[in-house]
């Protein structure tokens, strides 16, 4: 399922609220959580990470994975946390409205 515009950022932020992760961990986590329904384009994910890093929603540093590989780890900054809260509320509200409209039975 392709993602709606603006949704990816919130999903990434939500993922990172569980703790610092590198890019592949993030995309795997999203797939797992959505039981495979959300599939993120890898290039888009990297773009989103860098974009949010620039906006200071994320911090990043190089580290080493469990299997000894170098990887860039991203973590949520306080600004990112606040952004996540606001955007998540907005998105949930939005989808709730969509569900209400689309779920209404035509009488």
């Amino acid at each position, binding site marked *: 399922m392709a993602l709606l515009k603006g949704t990816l950022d919130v999903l990434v932020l939500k993922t990172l609220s569980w703790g610092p992760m590198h890019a*592949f961990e993030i995309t795997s986590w999203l797939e797992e959580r959505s039981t495979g329904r959300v599939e993120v384009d890898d290039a888009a994910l*990297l*773009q989103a990470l860098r974009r949010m890093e620039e906006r200071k929603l994320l911090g990043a540093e190089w580290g080493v994975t469990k299997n000894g590989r170098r*990887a*860039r780890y991203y973590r949520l900054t306080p600004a990112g946390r606040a952004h996540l809260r606001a955007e998540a509320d907005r998105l949930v509200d939005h989808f709730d409205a969509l569900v209400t409209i689309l779920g209404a039975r035509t009488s």
Partner: protein
Amino acid sequence: MRFELRPGVRRWFRLSRRNPSALHDELDEELAILIANRIDALVARGMSVDEARGEALRRLGGSLDEARRQLHSSADQRERRMEFRDYIESLWQDVRYAARGLVRRPAFTSVAVLTLAIGIGATTAIFSAVNVMILRALPYAQPNELMTVSLTAPGRGNITAGSHVVWSYPKYAFFRDHQQAFAEIAPFASAPYVITSGEVERLTGEQVGATYLRTLGLAPIIGRDFDRSLDAHTAAPPRVILGSSLWERRFNADPHAIGQTLSLDGKPYTIVGVAPRGFKGLSGTAELFVPITTLTDDEMGGAWSHWFNVVARRKSGITERQASAAAVVLGRQVANQFPDRVLAGAKWGAVADPLDQGRIAPLIRQSLFVLFGAVGLVLLIACVNVANLQLSRASGRRREIAVRMAIGAGRRRLVRLLLTESLLLALAGGVFAVGVAWAGTRALSQVRPEVVDFATRARIGAVNFSLIQLDWSALAFALGLALVVGVLFGLLPALGATRSTLANALKEGDAAQKRGITRSFSGRRLLVVLEIALALVLLAGSGLMMRSLSKMLAVDEGFDPRNVLSLRLTVPGGSIGRDSLPGFYSQVATRLRAVPGVTSVALGNCPPLTGGCAITVMWSGNREPDPTHDPLVGIYWASPEYFNTLGITLKQGRIFTDADRMGTAKVALVSEATARRVWPNQNPIGRHVRLGQGGFSEGDGAEIVGIVGDTRQWVDSLPAKDVYIPFAQSPRAGAMIFVRSTRDLTSLARDVRAAMKEVAPHYPTYDVQTMTARTGAATARARFSAMLLGLFALTALALAVVGIYGVMSLVVAARTREIGIRIALGADRGRVQRLVVGEGMTLVAIGAAIGLAGALACTRVLATLLFHLEPSDPPTYVGIVALLAVTAMAASWVPARRASRVDPLEALRSE
């Protein structure tokens, strides 16, 4: 292993920006890891390596290269954005840092800001004047196409050959009908009018051609323009176009005013339109416009009655030179058509000049440029002084700067930091300067320089001082000036301060520091020398103007303006018969004499010291006058009381009496200058002379019955040849009334107005002024220039003195040890003082020498503004050099005294 820095940190350590390839490598690495992880995970799930690769590629959107390209380009964009933000933030940081530094040194900051505010503010004020009076385009359509066309007169009397003079109607009509260079052409002349319908009011109008507004590219805001057919012949139907201010005042801006009639001098005029807002004619004072052709042939006068100006618009495609050449050619035809019968073969002609050239009197133009130059010098001195202050700060901050350089700050970065501070100072100065400029422009707009050019009235008054205001262009000028000034006084000290090598400055060693100080001293000495030179140039200019002014004021005016009130009274044409005028005026005089405190009342036509009013030829014998040989004299109408009221002394013979009236033998008085120059070594009393005006040209003319003292018509020239004729023998419709009183003139003016309302209710009384005010106006331009130049010079002197004081204080501070040794070795305190003062005076001497050379070169532009004074006037120069020397000595004496009080032991211990 690479390490990652936050942008802020990178900035703090002045690390160079990441190069793009490193940035791309990092992105590629992350991408590669992501792909590798994915393939690993897929293989772990049981996929073959090839399948896993295919899946990973799909997750990239199909193309690895495309994905990389996108990642790289957005990374580059982010990097650029970040750099820009960094740059802005660092600028802001500089500004905050500079502001903190300035706030921490309130004394330095306030002196610098004040100095700059005065410099920038004064320059802006004078710029506003120059802009309005000289630079800004005239407010008409395509103003560069507009030209004034004038006649040129042959030389005679005090008129030099080729002088531009005004036109007569027959000559103008010939020129208009034959010219081909101009698309539109129109005459205009300022004329007084009295509104006789409703409330009686006297105002100034213009008699113009029907094409006047069209020529200027203007159109009435309501109603219509004059019909072109009005130009066709004289005695045209009376029409009037109102000025917008008159329309608002008398008609409450009612559009229905169009078509109504307005009585002017008792004659009804139909209102056809309202002129554009703010347009007051080329004379600058007109409140209404009447076709010149409403005059009758008689009123218009013949070919030798010259009285109006002509403005014309060049046809497109005709250059300025072609137009003036055409005017010259046609001018010769005009001269042939109307040969000068009086002066055979006299060379009359015509010329066309750009309208812009005549916008202000040449003397005012020149004064303004001189002032602009002077104020520029003041600004330069102000800059030098602030640069000086900055230099002394910079040498104090040497260590701080060295530390910054040591931790990696680049020189450019440091220069920028110091420049930011200068610019901040300059902008603060600029803000206060707006206040100074506002006050300055207000003062300038109050100036009314009375420049009446009698012989050549061909100039326009559309531009005047009252238009000067602080507008956007002036504010933009001030801002630009502040920025330029900030760079100017900031750059040199900044470059100087960052030049020293690290090791040198960091070593607190005595030698290194001394070397630094001496070097900055030589720079500062140079600045002080420069300051003194500039101040001397200004002092020379203002000294000359002041001496010229005092010479001007010292010359005897020949009359006593104190305690005399003067006013004008106009009797609109024909409302009182010529024969009844003397009776009417004697009634007026009798009524005014009854006002308490009045000692005498006189009638005349022209106040002294305002440029004269009428010039005529004087001859005797039964022949026609010959203007090449017969003298031209100023002619004045005067009642018997005229001379004692104005305090003009009788030298010989008698003055007029009440018996000199219409019907009795005509008499005249001459001034001493006339007697001396027309009849050298002879007694003119008893001689008969004929005069070209006032009905004194017939028969024997008038007998000269007395000689009176000279009065001056021009503040800047010697008394001319004057002749007086009795008011009662040549009555005029308008008069100037002079009232001498023992009372305060302000309250007298009220009573006089009331008395006039009683005795002459239908005729306007106006232009009520004390004679002192009138004569004051005559010297206004000179006083104005002298005052402003003086102000600038004093400012310059004060700034220079501050500069000398500052430098000498520092010299003393740096040489405390040396002075201590000298005192310990037995030098007495007087000697130490002389040493320090001597050093200061050396600077002054060098500066003064340069300044003198500069002043001699610069003050030559003042030559035409000076009254009987050479621009190289030795006493002036001696005076200003002495003034400069004394103040400079005082400025260096204070630090010298401090030096002589140095305690040798303290001084030797101090390092």
